[in-house]
């Protein structure tokens, strides 16, 4: 059991990658997979073949990450791709978001579930508009950790001076955007310097190689263990036999640590009770942590159903009819003032009216342009919404799980936007 046991206790790290076209993102991911020995014989043969057919005299590691036929034909990546790799220290899940300006929505999507954002910077170009855009998104989505991979260091002679210049530019950007945990690593994806192994070509750099850094970032501290939140997803009722009259509230913990005996307020109704038990299929457990899917039983028999939220009465979220939120607009059709949409937040979906598009951000200057009247595809901005029924929310900066929502167009059923609560009343 030696091998399997060793792998059983690894943590999952979710990573989103971003960069502009040709920064070397595909090469970097290919390099990570190759140097961590994730590439299997048949995959390697496949890309060797494909490289030969394209007339390359080297194996193009970037081909490992290309996906659908249409993209292969056009030679570009157009959609988020998810892949996994594992090292003895961690299990990685990678969302690869393409770099074109028009695909902001892909980056937002990938960043919404990421623990770490990996942003590529071309050492020759330094911080460009795309770097700002990606950093803005990461800051807006509160992705807990950011890594800037300053790539193609071989093309600037592995220069310490050049790297320092870029690191300063990134520090300025980071403070403008309030990015809390950013790390800058000089590397060469093509040659493998500082990707998996530390490079001899940059003796002036004393930090970790990219992989080592990713393997050691502390994730447990990112959880919100203070604000007890539990959106009821499904009511489990069993009438038969020993489980006569069983009524359990199933869901995924959205904050705090849940234990039997905890005081509970049910929102929006405001009813009070106490946790009788926290269970999984194996029976009662001592505690449930953020992210765990469990079942909670209450001491009192109350009218609780899907869409209700259980919370700590001493520290309750806001029952809101009005939201001010940051929004990423994802549809071809622009969002306009007075638009009607559905808001899906935790396990509750309610109709909403766009009272006002407050502002749209200008990425080149990072300034808000007030009163734009509408939001176009890939715009990021601030919107005020009036809700037809209440939602139970926290500010997104405080709790990602109870501060996030998606916008749905009721006519087409499409997901047309992502929202992050700033303020609620």
């Amino acid at each position, binding site marked *: 059991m030696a*091998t399997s046991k060793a792998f059983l206790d690894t943590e999952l790290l979710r990573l989103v990658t971003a960069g502009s076209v040709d920064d070397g993102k595909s090469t970097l991911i290919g390099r990570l997979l190759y140097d961590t020995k994730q590439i299997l014989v048949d995959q390697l043969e496949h890309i060797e073949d494909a490289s030969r057919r394209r007339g390359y005299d080297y194996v193009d590691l970037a081909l490992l990450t290309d996906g*659908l*036929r249409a993209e292969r034909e056009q030679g570009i990546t157009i959609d988020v*791709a998810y*892949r*996994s790799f594992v090292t003895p220290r961690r299990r990685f899940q990678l969302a690869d978001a393409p770099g074109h300006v028009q695909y902001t929505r892909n980056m*937002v999507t990938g960043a919404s*579930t990421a623990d770490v954002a990996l942003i590529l910077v071309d050492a020759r170009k330094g911080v460009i508009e795309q770097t700002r855009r990606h950093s803005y998104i990461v800051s807006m989505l509160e992705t807990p950790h950011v890594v800037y991979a300053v790539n193609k260091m071989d093309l600037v002679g592995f220069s310490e001076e050049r790297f320092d210049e870029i690191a300063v530019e990134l520090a300025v950007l980071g403070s403008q955007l309030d990015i809390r945990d950013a790390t800058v690593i000089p590397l060469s994806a093509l040659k493998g310097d500082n990707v998996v192994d530390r490079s001899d070509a940059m003796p002036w750099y004393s930090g970790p190689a990219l992989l080592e850094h990713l393997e050691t970032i502390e994730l447990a501290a990112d959880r919100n263990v203070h604000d007890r939140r539990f959106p009821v997803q499904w009511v489990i009722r069993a009438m038969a036999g020993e489980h006569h009259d069983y009524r359990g509230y199933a869901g995924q913990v959205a904050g705090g640590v849940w234990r039997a005996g905890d005081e509970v307020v049910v929102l929006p109704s405001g009813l009070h009770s106490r946790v009788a038990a926290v269970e999984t299929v194996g029976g009662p457990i001592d505690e449930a942590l953020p992210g765990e899917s469990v079942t909670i039983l209450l001491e009192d028999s109350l009218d609780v159903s899907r869409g209700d939220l259980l919370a700590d009465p001493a520290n309750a979220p806001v029952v809101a009819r009005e939201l001010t939120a940051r929004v990423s607009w*994802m549809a071809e059709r622009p969002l306009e003032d007075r638009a009607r949409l559905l808001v899906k937040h935790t396990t509750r979906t309610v109709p909403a009216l766009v009272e006002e598009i407050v502002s749209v951000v200008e990425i080149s200057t990072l300034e808000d342009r007030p009163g734009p009247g509408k939001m176009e595809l890939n715009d990021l901005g601030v919107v005020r919404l009036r809700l037809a029924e209440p939602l139970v929310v926290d500010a997104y900066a405080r709790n990602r799980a109870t501060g996030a929502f998606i916008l*749905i167009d009721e006519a087409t059923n499409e997901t047309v936007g992502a929202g992050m609560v700033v303020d609620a009343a």
Partner: protein
Amino acid sequence: MTSRRTLSHLDVLEAEAIHIMREVAAERERPVLLFSGGKDSIVMLRLAEKAFRPAKFPFPVMHVDTGHNFPEVIAYRDRRVRELGERLVVASVQESIDRGRVTEQTGPRASRNQLQTTTLLDAIEENGFDAAMGGARRDEERSRAKERIFSFRDDFGQWNPRAQRPELWNLYNARTRKGEHIRVFPISNWTELDVWQYVARESLELPSIYFAHEREVFTRDGMLYAASDFVERYPSEEPFAATVRFRTVGDMSCTGGVRSDAATIDEVVTEIAATRVTERGETRADDRVSEAAMEDRKRVGYF
């Protein structure tokens, strides 16, 4: 209040899959859980128990039976569903053939694998299912890497890779118009190794063909196939005895085995962790046809 306990990758993947199953149950009228008898669908059954016990599953379990399955797998299916006390729907490819819905291929290369698509779509329509949950994973094949967890199909069961909904946080949009249905893949983010580790952690029983055993096989295209009445052999394809195990359990006509002495779950996990060839590339003939084979089949409604 601060708790130091960390969740392992299996804890996180399990919690995500349970959340997805409960969303499907809550947001769809008539879901169904597809079950092939393979390790991925056995994991799915376990996850459904975790999501809904002590109540019954809020959906039936459906098997698309090609009629050319390994007998061990059918026996396992019947026993497992009985133990769980859940409802089983069998959609039969043989029936689709008898009713003239599809035409059986002949010759040594004949496979009922493609025929499954019609049987599946017919069964979905006849039963009025509006969401079919399956155990496909993103690591199985490259075009799957971009498929969403909630994957929308048009009236012909087709998948359009260019018109996918963005999936943010754990907020899934399961809405469709009347008549449309969706496929949902709760274990999208799992790898083959994760599945085996989970099987080990949960002490799940698997059909015997997953473990090394001796059987009559023959060699074709560099792969080992089980000799059976369902597969016609070329004269040169002499059967011989070998110790093999199977990494997937598709139709006998297109599922190849690998030589292996791994007879227990731990031995298999150790072997997989050190493996040098991906599961599909090694053992599924239907994917070897062309580089874009999976993508093509998915466009026409294959799972």
